[in-house]
């Protein structure tokens, strides 16, 4: 065999070998890229506007920008919840929107905390809030906030204030509790007419918080509570 032919044959064999190795590596890395099922079998696809959901998914998966599309869609969800026109049907699509946003961006915990708090404490749709949080816990098993919120919603749902209040107080006393728990506890105090306890909680938040936004929020709620206390002695 001529040396040229031998080199050519060697090059083809090498090329084929590298091709097979890259194929094997690609398949092996697939299990690393998708360690958990990324498809959601929930029926929300049928409720959310199909054109919206399928277009979003197609763009996200085709361009490899699931997180980008997830964040863009999340802004749309906030706008949906902020639009009072949607209150006529009690924000019927909120759960489905949150679910779709979390499909695209499963590690963005705000979707679960915000969505579940709105669904449970505002819209009283406890089952949907729990389902959303369970989905969040599956994707973020180490995030304590989601577990705390799920417990709070369960107590709230069962009107079990005797358990809910000490549970939340203990969590907040430990420090670094998410603001949402402070809100839940303050609202529960307010619901039960314990204005002084609610005021003390917000005063503590005003004193200890490092964030300006939280201090402003605490001051706002304190004003509201003083007004309420004055009107309902």
């Amino acid at each position, binding site marked *: 065999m001529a040396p040229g032919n031998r080199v050519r044959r060697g090059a083809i064999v090498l090329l084929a070998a590298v091709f097979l190795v890259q194929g094997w590596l690609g398949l092996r890395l697939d299990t690393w890229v998708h360690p958990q099922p990324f498809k959601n079998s929930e029926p929300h696809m049928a409720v959310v506007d199909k054109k919206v959901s399928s277009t979003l998914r197609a763009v996200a*998966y085709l361009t490899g920008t699931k997180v980008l599309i997830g964040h863009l869609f999340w802004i749309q969800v906030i706008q949906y919840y902020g639009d009072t026109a949607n209150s006529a049907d009690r924000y019927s699509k909120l759960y489905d929107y949150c679910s779709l946003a979390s499909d695209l961006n499963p590690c963005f915990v705000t979707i679960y905390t915000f969505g579940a708090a709105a669904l449970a404490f505002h819209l009283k749709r406890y089952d949907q809030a729990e389902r959303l949080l369970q989905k969040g816990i599956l994707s973020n098993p180490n995030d304590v906030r989601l577990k705390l919120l799920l417990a709070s919603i369960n107590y709230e749902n069962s009107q079990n204030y005797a358990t809910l209040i000490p549970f939340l107080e203990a969590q907040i006393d430990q420090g670094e509790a998410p603001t949402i728990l402070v809100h839940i506890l303050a609202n529960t105090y307010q619901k039960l007419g314990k204005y002084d306890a609610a005021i003390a909680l917000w005063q503590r938040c005003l004193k200890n918080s490092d964030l300006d936004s939280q201090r402003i929020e605490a001051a706002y709620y304190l004003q509201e509570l003083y007004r309420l206390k004055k009107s309902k002695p």
Partner: protein
Amino acid sequence: MKKVLTVAAFTYRELIRSNMFYVWLVSVVVLSGLAMVLSMLSFGDSVKIFLDLGLVAMEMGGTIVLLLSLAVTYNTEMDQKAIFLQLAKPITRGEYLLGRVLGFYMVVGLFVLGMGLVIAGLGVCWGGTIPGLFWASSVYLLMEMFLLCTLGLTFQMMGTTMVGSFLYTVFTIFLGHLIGEIEWLLGQDIASWIKTLLRYIEIVLPNMEVFNLKDRLYDPTLILGWAQYRDTFLYAFGYSFVVFMIGWINLEKREFK
């Protein structure tokens, strides 16, 4: 190797001089500005959202620079016949192509890294901390860009028009991100011949999701260690090698009149 480096340096200078810096500057301003505005509009940790979107901006910026570079060099090399001058020199076509790949990669890599520094700097100025995975994602982006440079130049060697090679590259990038969907389809109850076909497609297409670490920046299930870096690097190198060889064969067979 000296000849390859000479071609790489020439390509680098050619691209830098063709106003790519302005493209990069516009990309940085527009994409980081958009990322900042969106993170302010959103509800949640603004810096985290900004870094998420910043990584997307880095990838988009790198891809835009690469695609424009491909279009510009196709015009000068193929349409205006500048390739004649280079191939008339004592240099093989393989050395020429490798030099082009390295030159492209130097420019695109520099732009991606520059954008990464801008994003990280803005994130720090905003009061955030940069997670270690941000830099890991940047390394993965650089590996992705190497593969894309090789792929784009191979299509340039195969394509007969600038638009054709541009579109081949764009669609291959898109299809490469669908590997996960193909994997999902393979798990479904479908005809065996379709499964076999899909398996071949899966192996032939570049697996772009392998480099997509930016979508998993806060994924608690992510395991990233030496083994993952090694496998991904080998995959990027192996795939690029095969694609480079195909490009080389095409360039050898190509007749320039």
